[in-house]
């Protein structure tokens, strides 16, 4: 009961603050729709286009993050495990990581068109570079003592990989996934700038053109909550998978 209250409190403060700004007179009230107006708009949209928007966006994020992470894990592993490789590849990784995905949109349109593939490519790009860094930083911090101990117990190279390296890499994989997920949601609106008809980013874009501020708020809040729930789900999985760790990041 107390726990629920504690979790709800900051949200209620946020909503109260929102009302406060609306009625304060400091800002033209037309520029800040009230929470209940946004809620009403949400109810309307749920009956029309919102479910499809959510589905499309979630699907894009899901595919982008999954494909990005699937590649980031082995690449990050190699970079983390072989310092010599890292030495040469690191600047390259950081070069691409520093490029904001939005800056690539014109190029992506040229090379991949304006279809579903183009949006997934952007999300893939964002997820891959976010994930690869987390993965290799984590792997390179694995203490060599565990490998040495296993060798003295008679482990072969393949046994060391399966029974020592993989378990130690799992927490880093999950962190890479979480970071990629966060970055992907952040990039979603940008990727849906590419002539998207559906998706939360498209919803926000269209509403912006018609100055429908309440719809913009609905879109933003939806993105926030979906990202939050995905993160919670991932953390629940992490807690089961790496319960041996001191704390789950």
């Amino acid at each position, binding site marked *: 009961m107390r726990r629920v209250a504690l979790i709800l409190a900051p949200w209620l403060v946020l909503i109260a603050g929102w009302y406060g700004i609306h009625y304060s007179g400091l800002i033209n009230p037309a520029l800040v729709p009230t929470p209940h107006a946004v809620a009403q708009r949400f109810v309307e949209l749920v009956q029309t286009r919102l479910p499809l928007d959510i589905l499309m966006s979630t699907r894009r994020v899901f595919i982008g993050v999954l494909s990005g992470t699937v590649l980031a894990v082995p690449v990050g592993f190699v970079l983390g495990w072989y310092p010599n490789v890292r030495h040469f590849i690191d600047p390259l990784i950081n070069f691409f990581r520093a490029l904001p995905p939005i800056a690539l949109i014109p190029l992506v349109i040229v090379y991949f068109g304006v279809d579903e593939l183009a949006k997934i490519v952007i999300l893939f790009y964002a997820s891959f570079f976010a994930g690869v860094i987390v993965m290799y930083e984590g792997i390179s911090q694995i*203490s060599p*003592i*565990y490998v*040495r*101990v*296993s*060798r*003295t*117990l*008679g*482990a*072969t190279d393949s*046994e060391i990989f399966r*029974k*020592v390296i993989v*378990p*130690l890499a799992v927490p880093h994989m999950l962190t890479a996934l979480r970071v990629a997920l966060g970055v992907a949601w952040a990039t979603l609106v940008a990727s849906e700038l590419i002539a998207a008809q559906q998706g939360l980013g498209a919803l926000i874009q269209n509403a912006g053109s018609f100055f429908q501020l309440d719809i913009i708020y609905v879109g933003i809040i939806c993105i926030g909550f979906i990202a939050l729930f995905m993160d919670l789900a991932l953390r629940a999985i992490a807690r089961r998978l*790496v*319960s*041996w*760790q*001191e704390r789950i990041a």
Partner: protein
Amino acid sequence: MTEPRVRIKFDQVSVQFPAQSGMMRVVDDVSYAVRDREFVSVIGPSGCGKTTMMNMVAGFMQPSSGTVTLDGRPIKGPGPDRGVIFQEYGVFPWLTVKQNIAFGLTLRANRTSAAEREEICSRYMQLMGLSDFADAWPRMLSGGMRQRLALARAYAVKPQFLLMDEPFGALDAQTRTAMQDLLLDVLAAEGKTVMLITHSVEEAVYLSHRIIVMTARPTRIREIIDVPFPYPRDAGLHETPAFGELRAHVRQLVMQEYAQQAKQRQSQSN
């Protein structure tokens, strides 16, 4: 009575590392033999190359010249015949206490049946006082318990040799004494050939058949000391005059080497 056979043999062993000012000699022309079921301690100033010597027996490194042999054969790499206890224990944090002990037994090198594994695990958990923590994660254990777990894990694969690198260094005085007695008990039950790297004179005299005192870098053998006290030993030994005399002798040698090392450092920094 005939002398037990030689198991580990250092024959004119030298080790050098590349350093800023040319090659740095860490171990210099060391020769000695460890016999079957002997407990040998290696003691000397810190950073003198004791761990280097253990690493050669463990198979983690090769001498630059000379040979280190095990039952007459040069050591090629690590193996389950030589259990190693590291200074930092190296207990696997992702496995429970029981899984840690069983780890070696699940490897192809020492494959055992599930029933046998179960039997070995519970035997060592009992011996090391870990039975109540079978399913606990290592992070929940105290330093002394982690130490015992590392020991149990090494023992489970039945090594003939035990190589220990300052295994009790991180423990408080009481735990340390308890661990030393536990080690003696376990060794009495299952004879093993032991090489212990330590900087504690007290520990070396209490546990060993022989103590090898090393010099400051480059490490040579300063003196090999026979410890005449019969086993089984117990804590009362610490209080006997003979123990005190021997301890004083060893301590004097070690202190001289520390002083020598300090002098070297000073002349280097000038």
